[in-house]
């Protein structure tokens, strides 16, 4: 009886560990990304991180999130920040607001990064209109340096506000080598987005 109970406990721990582990995203349709109506159909393998960073956030990477990562922000409602706030009392994050313009989307991302990730240097490098899953949105590029590692990173993103909910997908990687290495895979992924 004792042996059975021990085995049961170890099995439960094993199952819990598996449930919490990073997982493989195989090529093909992926639904309910970031616990939302966001869907995509990658043609490459990605790794989905267990760490999410927020209720409606999902992170995919190829070589590790410091080297390349795609972050999905799915259906963030008005009044909510895009990340889970690390220090709500002393460093509250900006919120999604009603009647945001497309140019407010990169501004929201920049402000959020500056507060939560200490990106004391960040610049939105380009902004242009685009269709995100058929909805009017924005495509933008950016660059930033976090205080903790001082690596110069570049980013590219598409975002749209649909029915008062923000949908945003970003790709980030170090400016040296990694950004260019996988940016086309991100662009291909963006073409398959559905809301």
């Amino acid at each position, binding site marked *: 009886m004792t042996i059975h109970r021990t085995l049961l406990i170890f099995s439960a721990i094993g199952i819990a560990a598996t449930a919490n582990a990073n997982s493989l995203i195989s090529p093909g349709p992926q639904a309910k990304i970031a616990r939302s109506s966001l869907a995509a159909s990658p043609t490459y393998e990605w790794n989905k991180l267990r760490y999410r960073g927020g209720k409606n956030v999902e992170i995919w990477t190829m070589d590790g999130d410091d080297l390349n990562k795609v972050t999905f922000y799915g259906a963030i409602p008005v009044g909510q920040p895009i990340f889970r706030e690390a220090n709500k009392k002393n460093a*509250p*994050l900006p919120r999604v607001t009603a009647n945001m*313009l497309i140019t407010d989307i990169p*501004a929201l991302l920049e*402000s959020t990064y500056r507060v939560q990730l200490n990106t*004391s240097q960040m610049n*939105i490098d380009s902004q242009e*209109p685009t269709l995100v899953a058929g909805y009017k949105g924005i495509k933008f590029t950016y660059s930033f340096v976090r205080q903790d590692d001082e690596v110069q990173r570049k980013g590219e993103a598409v975002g749209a506000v649909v029915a008062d909910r923000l949908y945003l997908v970003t790709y980030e990687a170090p400016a040296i080598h990694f950004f260019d290495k996988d940016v086309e895979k991100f662009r291909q992924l963006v073409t398959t987005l559905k809301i």
Partner: protein
Amino acid sequence: MAHRPLISLSVLTLLSSSPALAQTNSTTLPTYTPAYEPRTVDERGLWMEADEDERALRDSPLVIRDEALNKYVRGVLCRTVGEDRCRGIRIYILEVPAFNASMAPNGTMRVWSGLLLRVRNEAELGAILAHEFAHFELRHTLAAFKHQRTASDLFAWAGVIGGLTNTNVGLLQWSLVGSIFRFSREQEEQADLLSFKYMAASPYPASAEADVWQHIMAESDETAIGRKKKPRQHYIAGFFDTHPTPLNRATYLREAALRISHGGDSNSAAYYQATAKFRPLFLADQVKLNDFGGTEYILGQLASTNGWTGDLLFARGELYRARGNPRDLVSAAQFYGDAIKTGFSAPEARRGLGLSLLRNGQVTDGKAALTEYLLMKPDASDAKAISALVTN
């Protein structure tokens, strides 16, 4: 049991090793040793680490390398602590939008851009730089390192001896932990005292450091109010605080300044002029920190020096537009308009005005302002996105 008095004695010595801020009227500076070299194993180790950090710092993308700004900040330090003292110091101005400066044991001084935005004149900047220099001159990093090592040794030995003798040493261990933080606070007081002496010997008013802490408290209160919290200042530092509270510092520094009644010119106009080139960058960094109350206070302080200039009005417009309540958008449009009226020529004022109006439903006027922006800056990085807003 025989060891207990010995431990207690050591702890008492440790806990009482630093004096409080001396209540003296003397403003005589200690003798300074230029080109000081580390003397002990501990000190050489700390310097080696600081040298390594400085090599990385020298190549950091966060360093602002503008020659004129660096020369100016160095000049303020030298006028405050004296030419002989400042000669060997390397100053690195970093684009970090928070109020801070620090100094490493090897003479590396880091100055954050948030400090340059907040101080209102040369005297206030000099006071903060002098405080950091005082830590360096008093070799506080070394003393803190040794104190922490001794305290942690005693902590461990107290645990061992307490276990062997079946004695509860929890209170003693807590006292040791507390002593580390108290030691840090006492070092801050010592640095305040020495920097006050530098100020007294400088052409700047000695009350400047007290002024800085008063403004930091006021900003902190405004930040709290802006976040719908109660503003609260404490006189007594908490158990884990590494610094005396701003209220405590403002009080004892003001008292010290009154005792010597040292006047001087703060050089507000020169400071405003010297930092003008970088103020738009510093303001832009601050505005994006989602701190409405604190940023409003900083803008108000800057305006109190030279009035509401175009760059301040523009930054205020950006702040209100970022918060984005309907009433904020009305105010933002007003501030952008006022900035344009003052002759503020940056095309971004038209951009902000247009976006504020557009978000508040004033479509025709908003599109007109955005069209002006595109005419003024056709190759803007967001030109395509703004064009889309105009044509939709």
